[in-house]
């Protein structure tokens, strides 16, 4: 059997083994996750496997197939230059398919004064970029891909992975964040140009601190700035669509999501720039109890 290299990563409550036929993606991961806590033992929640689909693709036009404890058919392989992206997607896949300890929402989140702002929406809504921006402006970054809701208390648990910036967002953040916090440039990936951003040190250091969700936003980039109320029924349905494990959790998922919808005020937010978004958010945040 061909040699596999591996590293262990702990992010929030989840521990991953990333096994790879190639060293390079793991070296890139280690460089970016350097400040994250080391795993004290090798008991992990998930294993991600980066392997060639055919043995010769390990060397010839090396092609990374994303696998692991949880996998999906039809997954498109990535070139080795995008191996870091493959590892991140692999971790997303394990969480999306396998995590049961919290209700998962496709959402970004940031915290201030013990309260969390949760932002959810389709690809392109800007939730990742907004969380990266707010993280540089006084908020604590809690996650850009998944928001984890405690099934008993309803608190939000941090899951601060590398922030995935796409296309224009890369340039935007490069203006406010030093170069050493960025991962390699990956051009023309299936999701466009991508660069990963290491969350601020404080966010990583405080990755075990939960927060009470206080505001839910559905951001929409590229429209004249506006805030709109949303009906609870609409919010509930959209959140079931934004959750990868709502159905699998059964009754506890139902209790957790209904509690969330009952307790957390929600707005739709249209915006055309980071500054506009920040202003709209501050206006809502200042009015919260």
């Amino acid at each position, binding site marked *: 059997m061909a040699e596999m290299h591996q590293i262990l990563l702990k992010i929030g409550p989840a521990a991953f083994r990333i096994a790879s036929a190639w060293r390079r993606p793991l070296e890139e991961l280690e460089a970016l996750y350097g400040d994250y806590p080391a795993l004290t033992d090798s008991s992990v929640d998930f294993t991600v496997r980066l392997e060639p689909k055919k043995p010769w693709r390990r060397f010839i036009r090396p092609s990374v197939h994303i696998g692991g404890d949880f996998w999906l058919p039809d997954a498109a392989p990535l070139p080795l230059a995008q191996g870091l992206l493959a590892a991140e997607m692999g971790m997303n896949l394990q969480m999306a398919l396998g995590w049961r300890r919290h209700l998962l929402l496709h959402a970004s989140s940031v915290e201030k004064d013990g309260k969390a702002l949760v932002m959810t929406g389709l690809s392109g809504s800007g939730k990742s970029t907004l969380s990266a921006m707010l993280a540089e402006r006084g908020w604590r970054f809690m996650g850009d891909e998944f928001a984890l809701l405690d099934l008993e208390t309803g608190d939000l648990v941090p899951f601060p992975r590398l922030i995935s910036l796409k296309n224009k967002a890369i340039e935007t953040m490069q203006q406010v964040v030093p170069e050493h916090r960025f991962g390699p440039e990956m051009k023309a990936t299936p999701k466009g140009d991508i660069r990963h951003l290491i969350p601020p040190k404080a966010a990583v250091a405080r990755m075990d601190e939960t927060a009470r969700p206080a505001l839910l936003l559905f951001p929409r980039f590229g429209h004249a700035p506006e805030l709109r109320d949303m*009906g*609870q*029924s609409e919010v*509930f*349905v959209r959140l*079931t669509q934004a959750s990868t494990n*709502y*159905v699998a959790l*059964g*009754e506890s998922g*139902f*209790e957790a999501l*209904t509690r969330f*919808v009952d307790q957390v005020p929600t707005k739709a937010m249209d915006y055309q720039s980071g500054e506009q978004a920040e202003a709209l958010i501050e206006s809502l945040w200042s009015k919260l109890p």
Partner: protein
Amino acid sequence: MSLKYRAAPKDDLIWHDLDSMTLLFHRPSGITHMLAEPAPAIMEVMQDASLTAGEIASRLSAQFDIESTADAENIVLARLEELSGLGLVARVSS
């Protein structure tokens, strides 16, 4: 029509009101349903009894202010069939 219906046992169901719809979690199946009127009202008046569509329509008229009672029984019947397809109501041999 003498076909009778019975709501799923209370312990099998968790209800939750949202603004315009009512959520219903069905424990045995683990499925979450969203109900719009008159479905929640129908299940509410059924209680634990086995009833015909006509009997349910009467209970509805007694408890609620229904606009036109002419179609009520047929509407109730249509909703009961819908609910029974989802396992929320059972047909009972009369």
